[in-house]
Every structure is written in C-alpha cells, then in structure tokens.
C-alpha cells in the first residue's frame, strides 16, 4: 500500500528482526533494551486494545458520548511513547490513549472526558508531562514547538547530561499535515532549532478522506523543505517506532534541532464512534492491514525469543481486568456539580463570571425550594 523503499522496518510481518543497512543504526537501540521493557511493549499494546474495545462498547451502551478508537495504531504509539524520557513533554492529538497510560495517565480520565464530565482536566505534571488532548486538528503542534523553544531558552538542551537535556514529542495525523498550524510549527521549529520530534501517525484516513487528498507526495518528504530531517517507518512495528523516536529525541535533546517521523499505520476502526467507515473504504484495504497487525507481529517476535505462554496468559488476564475495572468505574461515575460551568474560566478573579455563577446558584436554589 503506502510502504516505500525508504520505509524503515525492524520487525518483518513474520516477526523476525530485519538486518540491513537501513536498520543498522537502530538495531543497537533495540539490543540495549532489557527483557522487561520488551515485554512492556506487548503488555501495553494488548491491554490498551482491550480497554479500547471496552470503551467502544460503553459508548454503544450509552455510557459515553463518544469514543475515539486507537485500534491498529498500538505499535506506533507504544514504541514512541516508551522512547521519551521522564523530563520530555508529550503533546498528544486525541487518540494516543496508550501514550498517556505509559506516562502515568489513568485512562479513566479519557473516559470521563468522552462521557462529557470534563474537557480533559488532567495535570501534566502528574501524568508524566503528558499534556491534554487537543481537538482542533494540529493546534498542539505549535504548543509543542513553543514549549521546546522555552527548553532551549532555559538551556536544557545539549548539555550532555542525560538527566537534564529535554525535548518535546508531538503527535498528529495525516489530516493535520494539511493544517496551517502544523506547517507553521515546522517553520518555527526549524527556525529556532527546537528540541522536538514531530510524530506523524499516517493512519491513511482523515475521517472519510484518504491521505492521497492531503498529499500527492509521501508525507515524510515534506519536512525536507522545512529543513527538518525525517524518516518513514512501518508504524505497525513497535521496535521501529521505539528506535526511530529514541534516535530522534536523542538528537533533539543533544541540540541538533527537530526531527520528523512518519509512521505508516492504519486506523482499523472508525474515526470515532460517530463514524461509519463502511461508507468510504474497501474491505480489501482493511484486510491488507489486518495481516500486518502490530500485536500479532510482535507476539511472534517475543515467542521467537522464547517468551512462553504464561506471559501471554498473564497479559490477557491483565487486559480483562483493566476492561472490567473501566466498566465498573464508568458505571459509578457521577455528573460534576453545575458550579463547574463557572470554575477556572480565568485564573484571577473575574466579576462577570462571578456574577453569573452567583445568579445561577440562586436560580437553582429557587427551584429546589419550590420543589421541597
């Protein structure tokens, strides 16, 4: 489909390591991973997929207003998410549930948001610097670039101290590459040589519009025009996602400027639960990508390394437990107080909001009295 000769793949669809000139720079990064991290990759992919299905079901049962599935994109997200260091800052779009989980976000916060209880509301300092979802397509690219400019001004780039040097990692999709903000982010990032990795998940569809409408050239070729080095990877290969993001972040933290990764993956599900992909895409395409499923491939790799059934059973149980827990906790959710309408519109006191909050409180109280 959209793989090119340039596509970096460390793991073949059969689950064996690919050794070539193209993979040579990245294989040492994989060799450097200890076994527990390799197992984490699998655990996170499986667990989030089960969670994702459960959340979709909860939406169908009327518990959520919306769900945004990440089915099929687990490898792109898990690999890149694990490549970031604790001091790095991650700016997601809105589908990177597992990256949040890796960084310490309770995925229930996403369920709460899509149930209509919050607009996100998590505190990035408490979620491993995983920032809030941004629903206007591509806006977060500029926030990540500005944040990275600040890192440079603060001198936390290129010191050589692995505890100090930091970068930002920003996620966006193929549709977002048409947005002005994403392109302006490329301009600013190149101009200020920000410590930053742009991570494009090309899942081939912006709701119903195929990537060919966004670009006539492979998207990884675009950054060259901005002066940003780029690489295209098999986004269903968790090892390629990890290694290229790791290399990109290392370069960015070292002061070499921004990097760009195009991860070729596929949105196996709908854009959101409000969408119906049968109206615009062919089964044949979906079949092509399901044969390249990121979890199946990685399981084959782990089994080839001698990982046994016990581990896979344990992960399956963990996934079921998380899904059951999410269901139980979702059913226990209560609506926020109406005072939340007026809270935190501003940081400093604001007379108009205060006045309207007081008015509504009195209005509500009037009904309570009338009803009592």
């Amino acid at each position: 489909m959209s793989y090119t000769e340039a596509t970096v793949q460390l793991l073949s669809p059969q689950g064996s390591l690919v050794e070539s000139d193209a993979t040579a720079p990245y294989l040492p990064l994989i060799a450097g991973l200890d076994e527990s991290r390799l197992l984490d990759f699998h655990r996170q992919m499986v667990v989030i997929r089960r969670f994702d299905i459960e959340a979709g079901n909860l939406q169908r049962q009327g518990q959520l207003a919306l769900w945004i599935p990440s089915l099929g994109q687990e490898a792109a997200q898990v690999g890149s998410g694990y490549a970031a260091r604790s001091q790095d800052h991650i700016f997601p779009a809105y589908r990177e549930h597992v990256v949040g989980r890796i960084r310490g976000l309770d995925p229930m916060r996403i369920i709460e948001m899509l149930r209509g209880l919050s607009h996100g509301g998590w505190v990035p300092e408490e979620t491993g610097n995983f920032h809030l979802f941004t629903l206007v397509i591509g806006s977060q690219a500029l926030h990540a670039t500005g944040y990275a400019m600040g890192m440079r001004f603060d001198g936390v780039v290129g010191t050589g101290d692995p505890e100090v040097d930091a970068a930002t990692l920003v996620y966006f999709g193929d549709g977002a590459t048409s947005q002005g903000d994403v392109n302006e982010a490329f301009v600013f990032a190149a101009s200020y040589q920000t410590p930053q990795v742009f991570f494009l998940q090309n899942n081939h569809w912006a709701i119903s519009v195929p990537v060919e409408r966004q670009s006539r050239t492979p998207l990884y070729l675009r950054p060259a025009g901005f002066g940003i080095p780029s690489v295209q990877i098999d986004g269903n290969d968790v090892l390629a996602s990890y290694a290229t993001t790791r290399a990109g972040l290392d370069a960015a933290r070292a002061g070499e400027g921004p990097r760009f990764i195009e991860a070729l993956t596929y949105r196996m599900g709908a854009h959101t639960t409000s969408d119906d992909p049968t109206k615009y895409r062919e089964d044949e395409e979906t079949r092509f990508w399901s044969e390249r499923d990121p979890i199946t491939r990685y399981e084959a790799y782990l089994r080839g390394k001698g990982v046994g059934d016990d581990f896979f059973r344990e992960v399956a149980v963990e996934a079921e437990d998380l899904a059951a827990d999410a269901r139980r906790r979702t059913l226990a959710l209560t609506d926020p107080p109406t005072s939340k309408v007026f809270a935190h519109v501003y940081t400093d006191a604001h007379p108009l909001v205060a006045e309207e909050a007081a008015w509504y409180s009195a209005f509500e109280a009037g009904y309570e009295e009338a009803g009592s």
Partner: protein
Amino acid sequence: MTERMMPMAKAINEGLRAAMTADPSVLLMGEDIGTLGGVFRVTEGLKAEFGENRVLDTPLAESGIVGTAIGLAMRGYRPVCEIQFDGFIFPGFDQITSQLAKLTYRHEGSQAFPVVIRVPYGGHIGAVEHHQESPEAYFAHTAGLRVVSPATPNDGYWMIQQAIASNDPVLFFEPKSRYWQKGEVADDGVPTPLHQSRVVRTGTQVTLVGHGAMVAQLLQAAEVAAGEGTSVEVIDLRSLSPIDFAPILASVQKTGHLVVAQEAPGNVSVGSEIAATIAERAFFSLEAPVLRVSGFDTPFPPAKLEGAYLPDVDRILEAVDRSLAY
C-alpha cells in the same frame, strides 16, 4: 511623584522595559519587533538591551506566534506578542479564541496562561486596507480573554505592566493614532486597577463613554458642548472585558443621558453591550434611549473616506443633541 512627558508609544516601550527588568520570564515576540523595534517602534531598543532570546523577531505567521507563545507559557514564560496591525490578527484567531482563551478552563485551573497580545488598532492614520480596523469585540465576546485599551501615555505605561502581571490572557489594544501625542507619565505613582473605567471629565447633563482613541474625541466634544452651555461627563472605559459598569451607572443616574462612541462597527459591539446593560440596570434613571455613535457596518473604507466612516466630534455632538432633545 516623578512625572515625565512622553508619547504613548514611548510610554508602552518603557512599560515593557520595566516589566522585562522586573521579571526574567517576560519575553516579547512578533514580526519586526527586534532589530527594527516594531513598525511603530514600540519595542525599540529592547532587543539590544535584553537579547534575542527575550525579544524574538519571529517568522511571519500570526498563528505561529500565538501558538508558540502558548507553549512558552506552559513552560513558565510570560510572552508578550505583537500583532503588527489590527487586520492581521485573524490568522491567529483560532489559537487565541480556541486555545489561549480556553486552556485554563480545559486544565481546570492547574495551568495559567499569562500571555499578552498587543494589537495596534484603529483608524485616523490614512493607511491601506487591514491597517485601520477595530476588532476588539470579537475578543470581548470570548470567555477566557481579558481585553483592555489605554487612552493616554500614563495608562499605556501602567496598563501594559498590569496586563503582563495578569495571570490570564490579555488582548491589549493600542490606539495607534494616539501613539505620538505626548502626555504625562507618573512612573512612581499608584496605577488605577487594570479593569476599572474612569471618569475623565465631570459633567451633569450627558454621559459620554468610549475607549482608546475615542476618548480624546469625547473630551474635545465635551469642550465644544461646554461652550454651548451643555455639561458633559466623559468616561474612559479602559477595559472592554470585563467592563466596569459602576462609574457608568453612577454617571447615568446623575445625567439620565448616555452616548457610547467607538470606532468599531456598531452591530453587536462593545457599545451594544453597554447600551443593553445600562438599559437593564438603570432603566428608570434614563431620560432618553442610550445612543451609539460608531463606525458604520461596512468594511473599513479606503483611507480618503475614513473621515466619513469614523465618528468625529460633530457626530458625537449630534448624538448629544439628539439625546437631550428626546
């Protein structure tokens, strides 16, 4: 108290310098603001003084300026963005209204966004299209933003520092036709709070309210009216969001007549909000309907016609007469 005479452009420049000196997290960003000092020279000398990491000559992209300022604010900076001209703010509109304005709410208060957006605005300078507009109502309409406009050099000096000190995003509209008129700046005085409106001339028969460059016109109109035996009170709004209605209400309770003037088009404008609110809160004090004097509901015309478009002393006095004759 030390008082010095200086034009507003210089006063804002000094206010920026004071804020940058007091707080190393304050940085300036915008097009041509560094080496050139801005097309109106409001940031003149600041790059030389504070360096290129605190006075950024950015790429030419307004959304990029505001969007990266948001990221810098997340990092702990207090960015002050310059939008070169009023009519150029719209490429940045989405980042201002959908992101900057809503991010504190989205974060449920855990993160403040102290970003100031300076906008030279308004007419009377004979410039080409997109260089003389008054777009303040768009921003006053948006929850999460604060919107202010100084009318004097003293307010320019103090209000820019107060805007930078605010923990919320502030749209800072600078009346560019007033950049070059000198006024006294009391640089060790006690400033009026940022969001207070202020009576700048007392009178008994009609209340005139306006902001920015309009305040000077209102004062001129009041002077002419006084010569004709009409006593006019003038209020400088200073803050467009939130609006401080107390001095306006107090004045209207005294005069019973209110005329609101602005360069911006009248339809769904700051003047409309004042007229509605005063009608709601001071209905029995009013002896005439609240009248609006504004730019027309047309695009800003070619410069040779701006005299017909922009409210002037005659149009203000016509409204005063109409109100008194009601």
